[in-house]
């Protein structure tokens, strides 16, 4: 396959940045998208040009580190992570536009690499059950109906990649935040802190500069892990319940 890659290049956060086009040949349909980027970078390095920087690590769709905006969609045309996208999804001669995630709360670090530490801070605001190591009950002393456990699991599969934010016109982090709020609100272990958790995580989400929910569902449509919009509904319910209850208990 021969392709033209229109890639966002930006030296650092202070740089204005812009698109640069690179023709590339000898791409096989069995390559993953990131392997195609590896080929580009090997060629650039050989020519003495700075390779394109992008985030990636596990390359098996679970770490959430890869993050490219491809042809206007987060993670490209398939509902998967960029590392699991293969070149068979593209056709010979195509021009592919590659950009970083675009969001105020995700500043560009270099080229296609963005800073997603805002997500860590949202989790730090309350995305946990406050138990210390040791002194916990036997695992089977907390029976959980299978249906509830399965639904909590579905919410817990979020990989924190940020595609939901990148897909959203408002760069809202509602899907990400709600996945964690839902998981812990559904499980008995999370009951004790559920009200506080919803309030604190949402406050942090707003403080980071993420926008409000558009209610269009673009986030769920692009989520590589299929995190459902139901989580946002649940989080809203959690939030209102917390707000209308005195003493927060």
């Amino acid at each position, binding site marked *: 396959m021969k392709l033209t890659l229109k890639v966002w290049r930006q030296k650092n956060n202070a740089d204005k940045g812009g698109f640069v086009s690179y023709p590339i040949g000898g791409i096989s349909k069995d390559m993953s998208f990131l392997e195609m980027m590896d080929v580009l970078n090997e060629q650039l390095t050989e020519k003495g040009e700075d390779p394109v920087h992008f985030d990636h690590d596990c390359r098996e769709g679970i770490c959430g580190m890869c993050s490219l905006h491809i042809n206007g969609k987060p993670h490209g045309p398939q509902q998967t992570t960029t590392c699991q996208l*293969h070149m068979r999804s593209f056709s010979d001669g195509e021009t592919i536009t590659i950009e970083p995630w675009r969001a105020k709360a995700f500043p560009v670090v270099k080229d296609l690499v963005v800073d997603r530490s805002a997500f860590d801070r949202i989790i730090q605001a309350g995305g946990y059950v406050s138990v210390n190591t040791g002194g916990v009950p036997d695992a089977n002393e907390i029976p959980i109906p299978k249906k509830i456990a399965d639904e909590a699991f579905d919410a817990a599969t979020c990989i924190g990649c940020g595609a939901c934010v990148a897909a959203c016109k408002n760069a809202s982090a509602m899907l990400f935040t709600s996945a964690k709020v839902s998981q812990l609100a559904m499980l008995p272990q999370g009951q004790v802190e559920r009200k506080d958790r919803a309030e604190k995580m949402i406050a942090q989400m707003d403080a980071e500069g993420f926008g409000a929910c558009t209610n269009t569902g673009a986030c769920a449509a692009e989520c590589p892990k299929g995190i459902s919009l139901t989580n946002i509904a649940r989080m809203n319910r959690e939030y209102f319940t917390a707000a209308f209850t005195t003493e927060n208990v």
Partner: protein
Amino acid sequence: MILDSKIPAGPLAEKWTKHKFNMKLVNPANKRKYDVIVVGTGLAGASAAASLAELGYNVKAFCFQDSPRRAHSIAAQGGINAAKNYQNDGDSVFRLFYDTIKGGDYRAREGNVYRLAEVSVNIIDQCVAQGVPFAREYGGLLANRSFGGAQVSRTFYARGQTGQQLLLGAYSALSRQVANGKVKLYPRTEMMDVVKIDGHARGIVTRNLITGAIEKHAAHAVLLCTGGYGNVFFLSTNAMGSNVTAAWRAHKRGAYFANPCYTQIHPTCIPVSGDHQSKLTLMSESLRNDGRVWVPATVEMAEKLRKGQIKANDIPESERDYYLERKYPSFGNLVPRDVASRNAKYVCDEGRGVNETGEAVFLDFRDAIKRDGEDTIRARYGNLFDMYQQITGENPYQVPMMIYPAVHYTMGGLWVDYNLSTTIPGLYALGEANFSDHGANRLGASALMQGLADGYFVIPYTVGDYLAQIGPSPVNADHPEFEKSIQEVKDRIQKLLSIKGSKTVDYFHKKLGKIMWNECGMARTAEGLKQAKADIKALREEFWKDVKVLGENEELNQSLEKAHRVADFLELGELMIDDAFNREESCGGHFREEYQTPEGEALRDDENFAYVAAWKYLGEGQEEELHKEPLEFENVKLTQRSYK
């Protein structure tokens, strides 16, 4: 130096309890006077950092990824073992201990392994309390499955994403301590050196991957939780960033490196499809619970298959060789990983491989789908099947999967004693970064168990013992040793950037990987190892003359990061070869072709090799010095492993 494992005396089942009592404690009010550095935020690192912070220590946690949640523990699929015996099928702490020792081909310490089995039950309690959504039965209690190499169902799992759920649990505990101000996080920061003062580890030197700043951090103790070194093979199931650098720099500062040649080749990975490949993808071996492994019975049939003249589903039952079930009737498809991998290699070497390259075997779900229905199989392995289809473009519900072994885990690592202390006092190694619990072969679902055991339940006690002994006098980074180390790190960076050669870092990494895979992979010979040693030396020389690293230090520079890591792999590779050459026996993942039974099974030499090989670094360009820690077995009888 005599290697003292510090295994407490007394009966196996009482060692850890007694040891916990004998260890010194740090007064609760004094804990805040101690600083601890944790490098790596996978299961071992995140659990250690969180647990130590909960106790009151001041923790600094470092990772090279953009968030602690990305550590490669997240990719573990199948599950985590624990001797809960919830299934009433005869499991016990002793059985888990016994299986692990036997599975490791009698090359692990009894004391360590027993403790691991003992605390395994606490791990499950801890994770459930954190809200980890393990699989459950309809009655609301936890579900278990059996897993490679075990005859009881003791594996807890969260679909095919157990590592993800456990890591997110540990990450949430860590995040809570960050919010409490007890942990300071340093993401996108790589450890470049360990700093020793008066023989004790007193801090580290790091590189900020965004700005290139070389920084120093002092502490009373340093914990390396930096994972394994499988990426020395270039192609492995490890994440692209997984590296040996932290462990290797510690090794060069005096920490012994143990059993480097013990590498695990995982039997169920998606086969290599071409030269462009950047990594290999593992399919959880839980698939072997329901999938049947086979190749055509004859070479002729396999050739037809490779040429596309016949499809897998058209091959009649009589023409299929379910070789694991045939050779190992009692374990069948569930034989341990090393046995399954080696047998896949044998049938492919015979010319019965099933894909274009001839290096693949089938893993077939036809019978399981017929027996249990597609929905049941989807519920068990849905995400794995989807992943397979995404990568290969084939639907495994309809055609058999194709699999081939790939490098997955490294049992070797920094030598540690019972307290997880390396040979440098104050420097600890946890999880895959140490060598201690899996012997020559790790059983499935035991990596997660070990990482969390070390982090949640071992290190909080053992590091306390050390800290209580050294006392809480403040540490700082003003000591000249820090400056010396910073200068060395800067010089090395300068050197890498100034070579301006003609070949990329990946060129060298790929070449190294080929040498290691061919000569130090699934089968090794004295002849091949000798050649490989010479080849690696030559390659390393070429690297330092001709590598091309663009850009500068003072920016995000992924080529420079990689160059550092590959430079270390080029040194580690040679030590792995030395270790494989020295070990004139076959055991677990280490298979020397000269040493095998008539049936082609690994042939151990307990008389001469029942020891841990711990290597001491002596200096640039010098051969490393071998130290032996004898392994003593008081509770198990050493037998030829048999899974027939």
